[in-house]
Every structure is written in structure tokens, then in C-alpha cells.
């Protein structure tokens, strides 16, 4: 079973996920409430990308991780725990020492390249799909298969 996400404040980084071989998510712009940045880091290579939802490249993400990507790592560690983030991104780090800072330092030290995969549109649409979950109707017919998904007190 996958341990549940840990609660965190969502204002700065409303969406984080470990999916498709990447850490990816959406970071709110500090200056424009209509704008968000779509940021990602690829597992293994740490190839990174950051652009706005309108596909403009982020000015901060030219040579290395911008502040959006750093915020993404910080919030991912809050949500999933440092160990799971490290394992997903294939960052070698001593388990008990891993923090968002040590993970970011370990990745930037390898001088990762810009990601050419152009996943921003896919990530943004996954974010919209994620938001759409709030609009789905409840049901009162039983879902017997949810018996396989007990709540977990386990921490990621």
C-alpha cells in the first residue's frame, strides 16, 4: 500500500507528484495569481524544466534549479517524506540524513541538464485532472473494494 500523503500547506505549491519517472508539480507565481509554473525533475538524470502554464520558459531555470524547482523539492519532501522522494529520483543519500536541502544539493552538484522532454503540458493537464476531483459527486452505494484500502497511520 502507498502511505497517504502528509498534510502540508498548499498555497505555494498546490500540486506535487512522483509520476512518469519524474518529480513534477505546479508552483504558484509569487506576483501574479493568474499564473502558475510547471516544474519537474527527471529521475536519475535530474534533468529539470520550469515554464509557465502559458509555456513561457522560467527565467530562473537556465543554468540550474530555479526557486520554483527548489520549492517543489521542499514540498515533495513534506508530502511524501525525504526517503520516498530520494528513492523515486534515484538520489544516493544516507536515509537518516536526507532533507530537501541535502537532496537539492546532491542533485545540483551533478550539474543536471535542462530537460528537453517538454512535459509541461502533460503535467499541467494532470494538475487540472487533480483539481477536477473536487468536483466529482459522492455516492452512497457501497464500494466493497475500499476494504483493501484501510487508512494508514504509517508515516511515509
Amino acid at each position, binding site marked *: *500500500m*502507498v502511505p*497517504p*500523503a*502528509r*498534510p*502540508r*500547506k*498548499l*498555497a505555494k505549491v*498546490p*500540486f*506535487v*507528484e*512522483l*509520476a*512518469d*519517472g519524474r518529480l513534477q508539480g505546479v508552483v*504558484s507565481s509569487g506576483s501574479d*495569481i*493568474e499564473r*502558475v509554473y510547471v516544474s519537474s525533475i527527471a529521475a536519475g538524470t535530474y534533468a529539470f524544466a520550469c515554464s509557465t*502554464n502559458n509555456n513561457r520558459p522560467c527565467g530562473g531555470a537556465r543554468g540550474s534549479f530555479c526557486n520554483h524547482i527548489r520549492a517543489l523539492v521542499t514540498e515533495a519532501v513534506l*508530502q511524501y517524506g525525504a526517503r520516498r522522494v530520494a528513492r523515486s529520483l534515484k538520489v544516493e543519500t544516507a536515509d537518516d540524513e536526507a532533507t530537501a536541502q541535502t537532496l537539492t544539493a546532491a542533485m545540483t552538484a551533478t550539474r543536471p541538464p535542462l530537460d528537453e522532454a517538454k512535459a509541461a503540458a502533460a503535467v499541467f493537464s494532470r*494538475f*487540472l*485532472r*487533480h*483539481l*477536477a*476531483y*473536487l*468536483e*466529482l*459527486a*459522492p*455516492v*452512497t*452505494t*457501497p*464500494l*466493497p*473494494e*475500499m*476494504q*483493501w*484500502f*484501510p*487508512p*494508514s*497511520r*504509517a508515516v511515509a
Partner: protein
Amino acid sequence: MRADLLTGETAGLDEALAAVDGFDDALTEGLLRPRPAGAAALTALAQALAGSPPAARVAEAAEKTAAGAADEEHFVALAAARTALLGSVHDALTARAAEAVGRPRAEEIAPAPGERPRPVNLLLAARAWLSDLARAGWRGIDHEIVSGSAPVISAMLADPALRRLAALLDGFAVELAASCPGATLERVPARRWADLWSRAVLLTLPGAADAPAGGTATGRLLPLGVDLHEHATAVQSQVHGVFEPADGSPSRLVRASVSVPKPDSVVGAGLWQLLRPHMSLLAAVGEGRSVELTGMPVTAEGDLLWDDAHARAGESADPFVTARVALPAATDPVTAPLDRHPARIAVPVFLEGYERGTGEDGRPVFTVAGHPLPVDTGRIPVAGPLTPEAVAASGACVGLLRWDAGTFFVQPLAVERTVRKKTTALHAGAWAAGTTDKAGAKAEKAATDAVAVLRERAGRLLRK
């Protein structure tokens, strides 16, 4: 409770589970071209079903699959075979639990096929994905195979009539995605994933997921406790209670469920917040009240198909009084044929006068009349006042009797604890309707803020 009846051998159980495990290993390696061990396991599965009605179909499916020539119909037959075997395990365990609990049991029910029309193309699309999984095996899954489910799940979620399968596929896909690639996985949860896979395969049969109302319930509902289920993108609460019909007929155990999809970042108290507006029963549970039902639809399995229009709050009702006084005489419902599975066993029980101890794994054990009964405190929701520590220090417990990995255990729904001659009750679902507890209120505030952020983002970005 006769806890002594819960231990010891169950005839035929090991053989049935061995056949299941063999199939699960074959599925782990993939069914595209099974190796000799996998082929032998498929044959053994078919042999375990010999003499039963689907035997011929299962034998053919096993043979074709072993030869690397399976089609989707064959996978359906194999899923049905595995489910039938676990159904027999369920029946043996349920009979034992019923004897231990000593309550009357309802008559068997005939399967009632669903009648609502179904978008068959979505069911077929789901089956195609599940077949891809089966061919690849858990060792062969990667992000591409797993993400193939996304369009099907999105389309299904929009239709509440398909929610049962959609919620299952969604939770399953999230779990598989977190385990990709399968080739480097340290340990494959073979039984669990094969359970989820075979249930999903059977639910792609039109009508299989239906639980039609067999009648209506009019009378008094006395809640016992709340069981919560959650995965990354769905939550369900299930209230267990004793229903006393107004016409004076025997009381019986019923459940009332409400579920809703959710973003994965909504957790803890946020789960209650999502569920709360859709079921007045949760408020009644939080306030310790009974509920008067008038014409509430109910299935033959004892599931109330909740609609607030058929319910109004009743007198106050202490679940521990219900457990002591009303529970022993209530009839246990039977399980629908498709739902017969050991993991589905959740029998309300009341325990007191037990000795408290700790098992080898560090978890609490209640020794009931000299017989140890393990306690699973891991299933207690975090957003509530009930804690593993309170359970370990309790004197009475309302819980669900469950079975996993060869043993029965109790999942506490509520406990009574006596501190300095004062007895207080702690309920897992106490915060279902909100709370004035300090830690609870803080969790509520954090959850409210999280949902507010997501709704604000949705309002700005979703409808563009």
C-alpha cells in the same frame, strides 16, 4: 465471544490458498508466455475448481493461458476461478466467526443481477488495460503500461454509476505507479495485487458491480461505529449499526456508506470534511444519536443506500449500550456472492473483560477467555481521538472482527477506558461531524485551508 473458535485449522483452507498463491506467482511473472512453473500453477488452479460449475471454462482458460494463447475472456475465467476459491475460504472463515460471535445469521441470498444500463465500451476499455497488466505481470509493469488506465478512469469517475470500479482502478493504478518499474521492485505484494486485479476484472462484466435495493428500511438505526477507508484519490466511511425495524421484526446489522473521490493532498480531517455534507448519519454518529429511518432503500446484504430524505435524527444512543444490549440479538447479514472474500470480512463485535497484552510484533493483544486475539490499531484513522495507546489501555471495545494472513484480529472502532474510576469512551469516528478538541480543530483548520487553496486554483484555472 468464544475466542477459542477463532484459532486452529480450517479444513481445506491451506489447499485453497496454495492454489491462489500459485496463480498469484504466475501473474507476477506475467501471463503472456508463462514459464513451466506458471503453467503448472494455472493447471493447479483449474484442478482446484474441478467438479464446480465453471470447471470446464476454467480448464480451457488455464490451458490456453499456459500455452501463451490467452484472450481477455480467458483472463475473466481465471479471475473468476481465483475469486471462487477465495469465496470458499471466506465462507469457511465466516462460519467460524459466526460461531464465535454466536449471533443469528440471515438466510442465503440469490444473486440479483443489476439492471441499470452500462457504458459497455468503458468496461471493455478497463478490461483491455487489466489484460495488458496480466500479460506484463507485476514484474513487467512500467509507467507507460500503468498510465494507460488514466483516460478510462477519468471517464469512469464522471459517472457515479461506475464509481465502484473507477475507485478501485484509481487506487490500484496509483499504487502500481508508485512501484514502477516492476523489474526492480524489492518485494511484490502478489496476493494483494492479484486480489485487486481479479476483482476489477470481474467488475468489468456488465451488472457485476450493482447492489440493487432489495427493500426499504423503516425503524431505528443505532450506530456502533465508523470504519474509514482511503487511498490517494478516494475516501469512504462505513457506519456499522443495529437496525430495529418499526414493525417489530428481528433487529439486524446494517451498514451505511458514503464515498467521494479526492485530490491526494486532502488527508486527515479533510476526509471527514469531504464526506460530512453528504450524509446526516455522520452528524448523528458524532453527536451520539440514533437515526429514525423511513423507507430507506436497503440491499439484501444489509447496505443502506443512504438518502438524507429518508432519515431524521433520533434520541441519544450510546454505542456501548447498543453493543452491550442490542448487538447480541441482531442478525448478521450474508455477503453477496461476488463479495465473498476474506478481506471483506468485517464482523461487528463487542469485547470486554479481556486481559491486555502485547504481541511479538509490538501490537496489542486482547486475551479473551484465555485466547489471544491480536488487535490492529493501524486501521484507526488519524483524525480522531482514538489512539493505539488508548486501545492498549482499554477495558471494553467495539470493533470489527477481520481476518488476514492466517489469523483473525480485531480492528477497534471505539474503546472504553477507565481513569481514576471515571469511564470515558473514545470513538474512531468522533470527529466525523467536526470537533471542539484542540488538536482536532487545528487539523480541521489546516484541511479547510488546503481545500480552499485547491478550490481557488480550480476556479481560476479549470474553466479556461
